[in-house]
C-alpha cells in the first residue's frame, strides 16, 4: 500500500476529526486513525466507540489497502512539516509505515486495520436535512445548558424533537433550560432523539458555517450526520428526557424588558463581588429600575448597580446564580430581551424581545430560594 498526499491537506482533514480520539481510550487501538485507500480515495476514521468521524480525500495511489496509524505521532509530524507532498509506504505484513518528505524519512509502526472497531451502519432509519449554519446555531444556542452530571445521563445531551411543522432542540441540567425551535425545518418522522454532548461538541467544531446541507439519518440507537466529505456516527442516549414542556411556566405576569448587553455588563461586574462558590446575585425590580446586588460576607465584598429597564408587574426581588444568567445572556444575540417572571421561587423565562425569522428561542433560569423574611 502506497499513496502520495499533500501534508497540509491531510493535516486539515485530520484536525477536523482528531477530536474524537479520547486521551485515554478504552482500547489502545483507538489511539489510531484508520487509513483505508480505495482506488484514489483515502478514507480516514477516528473513533471512541461511542462516536466515530469519517472523512474522505483524494490521493495519488496505485495500490489500495488499509492500516491503523498512531494519531499523536502523525499529527505532530504534520504540524512540523512545511507544505509538501508526502509519500506513505505501508508494509501490510509488518504494519510498518514509512513517510517520505523532501527532507527525509520517518518510520513508525502501525496496527492491523482489521482490529479497528467498525462503525455501525444505519439501515431503514429516518432522515432529516438542514443547512449547516442553522444546525450550528442550534448547537451553539443549546449545548452550554446540557448537564455534565454522569449520574443523570438523560440531561447530558441535546434533545431533538421533530414534527411535521417544526424541529425543536432542547437542553437542560435542571437549573437552566434552552428550547430552540425552527419552523422552517420539518420531518414527517414525528419522533425524537437524544444526542450526546460530546458528539455535538465535535460537530460544532467541524460543521462549515455556510448553508451546506447536513443530512441526518437515525434509528433508535445511532445517528449519522453527513456533510461535504465528512461523516459522523454517534450512539444516541437511551434515556427518557424530562418533560420540559410542562415544566416551563406559561403564566408570567411580570415582564422585564432590558438591553441585553447592559444587563450582561452589570451582571459581570456585580458577580465579581458575589460568593465565589455560589455566585449568587439579587435582582430587585421596582418601577422602571432594576437593581442588581451581590455580596460575599466572608470577604466583606459588596456590589450594587442600578439599571433602567421597562418593568411591568408587582415589585419583586429574586435571586439567581449569576453564572447561569451570564451564560444565557452571553449565548443570546438579540439586542433586547424580555425576562418573564411570576414569583421569586419560580423560573425566569428569557426571550429575545423580537424573535428572528423562522425561529423561536426560549431560555429559562431557575432562581435560588431567598428567604422572604430575612
Amino acid at each position: 500500500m502506497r499513496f502520495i498526499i499533500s501534508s497540509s491537506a491531510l493535516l486539515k482533514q485530520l484536525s477536523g476529526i482528531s477530536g474524537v480520539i479520547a486521551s485515554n481510550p478504552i482500547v489502545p487501538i483507538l489511539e489510531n486513525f484508520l487509513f483505508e485507500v480505495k482506488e484514489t480515495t483515502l478514507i480516514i476514521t477516528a473513533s471512541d466507540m461511542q462516536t466515530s468521524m469519517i472523512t474522505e480525500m483524494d490521493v495519488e495511489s496505485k495500490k489500495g489497502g488499509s492500516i491503523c496509524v498512531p494519531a499523536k505521532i502523525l499529527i505532530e509530524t504534520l504540524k512540523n512539516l512545511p507544505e509538501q507532498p508526502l509519500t506513505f509506504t505501508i508494509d501490510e505484513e509488518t504494519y510498518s509505515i514509512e513517510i517520505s518528505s523532501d527532507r527525509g524519512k520517518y518510520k513508525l509502526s502501525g496496527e492491523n486495520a482489521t482490529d479497528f472497531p467498525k462503525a455501525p451502519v444505519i439501515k431503514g432509519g429516518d432522515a432529516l436535512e438542514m443547512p449547516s449554519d442553522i444546525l450550528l446555531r442550534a448547537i451553539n444556542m443549546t449545548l452550554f445548558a446540557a448537564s455534565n452530571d454522569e449520574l443523570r445521563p438523560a440531561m447530558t445531551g441535546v434533545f431533538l424533537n421533530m414534527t411535521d411543522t417544526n424541529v425543536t432542540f432542547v437542553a437542560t441540567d435542571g437549573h437552566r433550560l434552552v428550547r430552540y425551535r425552527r419552523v422552517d425545518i420539518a420531518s414527517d418522522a414525528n419522533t425524537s432523539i437524544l444526542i450526546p454532548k460530546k458528539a455535538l461538541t465535535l460537530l460544532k467544531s467541524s460543521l462549515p458555517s455556510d448553508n451546506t446541507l447536513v443530512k441526518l439519518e437515525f434509528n433508535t440507537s445511532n445517528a449519522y450526520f453527513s456533510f461535504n466529505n465528512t461523516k459522523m456516527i454517534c450512539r444516541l442516549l437511551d434515556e427518557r428526557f424530562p418533560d420540559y414542556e410542562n415544566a416551563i411556566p406559561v403564566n408570567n405576569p411580570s415582564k422585564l424588558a432590558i438591553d441585553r448587553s447592559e444587563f450582561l455588563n452589570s451582571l459581570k461586574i456585580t458577580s465579581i463581588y458575589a460568593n465565589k462558590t455560589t455566585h449568587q446575585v439579587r435582582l430587585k425590580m421596582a418601577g422602571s429600575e432594576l437593581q442588581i446586588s451581590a455580596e460575599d460576607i466572608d470577604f466583606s465584598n459588596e456590589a450594587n448597580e442600578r439599571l433602567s429597564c421597562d418593568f411591568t408587574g408587582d415589585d419583586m426581588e429574586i435571586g439567581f446564580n449569576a453564572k447561569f444568567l451570564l451564560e444565557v445572556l452571553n449565548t443570546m444575540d438579540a439586542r433586547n430581551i424580555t425576562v418573564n417572571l411570576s414569583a421569586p421561587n419560580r423560573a425566569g423565562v428569557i426571550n429575545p424581545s423580537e424573535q428572528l425569522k423562522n425561529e423561536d428561542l426560549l431560555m429559562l433560569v431557575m432562581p435560588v430560594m431567598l428567604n422572604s423574611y430575612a
Partner: protein
Amino acid sequence: MTQRTILHMDLDSFFVSVERLKNPALIGKPLIIGGTSGRGVVASCSYETRKFGVHSAMPSRLAKRLCPEAIFISGDMESYSKYSNKVTEIINDQSPTYEKASVDEFYVDLTGMDRFFGCYKWATELRQKITKETGLPISMAVAVNKLVSKMGTSEAKPNGQREIPAGEEKPFIAPLSVKKIPMVGEKTSSQLFSMGVKTIRTLREIPPKYLEAEFGKNGLVLWNKANAIDNSPVEPYHEQKSLSTERTFHEDTTDIVFLKSKLVSLTEALAFELRELQKLTACVTVKIRYSDFNTLTMQKHLPYTASDPLLIQTVKDLFNKLYDKRMLIRMIGVRFSHLVNGSPQINLFEDTQEMVSLCQAMDWIKNRHGTELIQRAIGAKDILTPKLSLINYGLKRTIKSTY
C-alpha cells in the same frame, strides 16, 4: 517573630457561678450542673464537689455517688449565654483583638501594649472590671502564647491570676503533669504514663522523632507543646466550618422506626438552622454510637444545598448504609460541613412549585413562632413516645465554633 503577649481568661466553674448569681442561697453549697437523668453527664461543678473527685464530663450517676449531698441543676443554656455575652461585651469594649474560644474562655492579644500600660497591670484591671460588673469570678494568665497562658490560667484557678514572663515559660510548665497540656486527654495521657512519662519536663527531653513514631503527626505537635511552642494567632473571627447536632438516648435502642424519625427531626432542625444562617452544605455526615461506645461515621458529598427533602434523604441513605449490625444504639448525630454562604438553588424538575412554597411557608412559621410548632410528622414521633424522650438537649447540641 516579635515577642507576643497573650492574655487568657477563663470564667471559674462558669455555669455554677451563674446559678449562684441567680440564687445566692446556693453559695457555699456543693452544686453540680448537668443532665440529671440516668445518662446525663456533669457539665460544670462547684469547687466544693471537686474535693470529692467530681469533675466535668463525668456521668452524673457517678457524681451523685461520690458526692450525695450535692445539689443537681439541669442547667439553663439561655441564661449562660446571656452572661457569657455580657463578659464578651466588656472585653470587646476594652481590648484590641480578642478571641472567644468558648462560652467561658477568651484570649486577648496584648502585643505592643506594654509601652503604654504594662500588660499585666492592664489585664488585672480588665479582670477586676469583669468581676465588678458581672459578679462572675474569672481567672487569667499572661504569657507569650496561647498555650502557656491557658496552662497558666488553670494553675491560677480558682479566682486567681498569674504572669509568666517571657523566657520563663519552659521552667513554668516543666514540673506540671502531661495531663495539663491542652488536647492531651485520657487516652494520650495513659499512653504517656505507660511510657513512664509523667511530667512535661520528661516529655520535653524525648527526641521528637520517637514521639512521631509513637503518636504519628500528633507526636510533633505534642513535643512542640511540651517545649511551650505555640504560634497560633488570636483569631477574632471564626469561620463556621460545620453545623452538627446529636442525641444520646435514655435507653439504648434498636427501634429502627424511632431512630429514623429521630434522624429526620434532627436533620430538619439542623437544615432550618443552616437556612437561617443563609448557608449551604456540600457534605453530610451521619454518626452512630453503639452501646459499647464504638462510634462510626459516614459522609457523603453532594452539590451545595439546604433543601429539607434532599438532606433528609441523604441522611436516611447514609444511616441505612452505616447501620448494618443489629446492635443497640446509644447516640446518633448529623453534621453538615463544607459550608458556604448562599441560598438553595431551585431545580426545574425535582422541586415542584407546591414543595418549594411549602418549605418556605414552614420556614416562615419556624422563624416567626418557633421551631417546635411545625415539623414533619415522622420526626414528631417522640412526642407520642415519652418513654424515649431525650436528654441533654441544650448541652449536647454543639456548634463547632461560633461567630
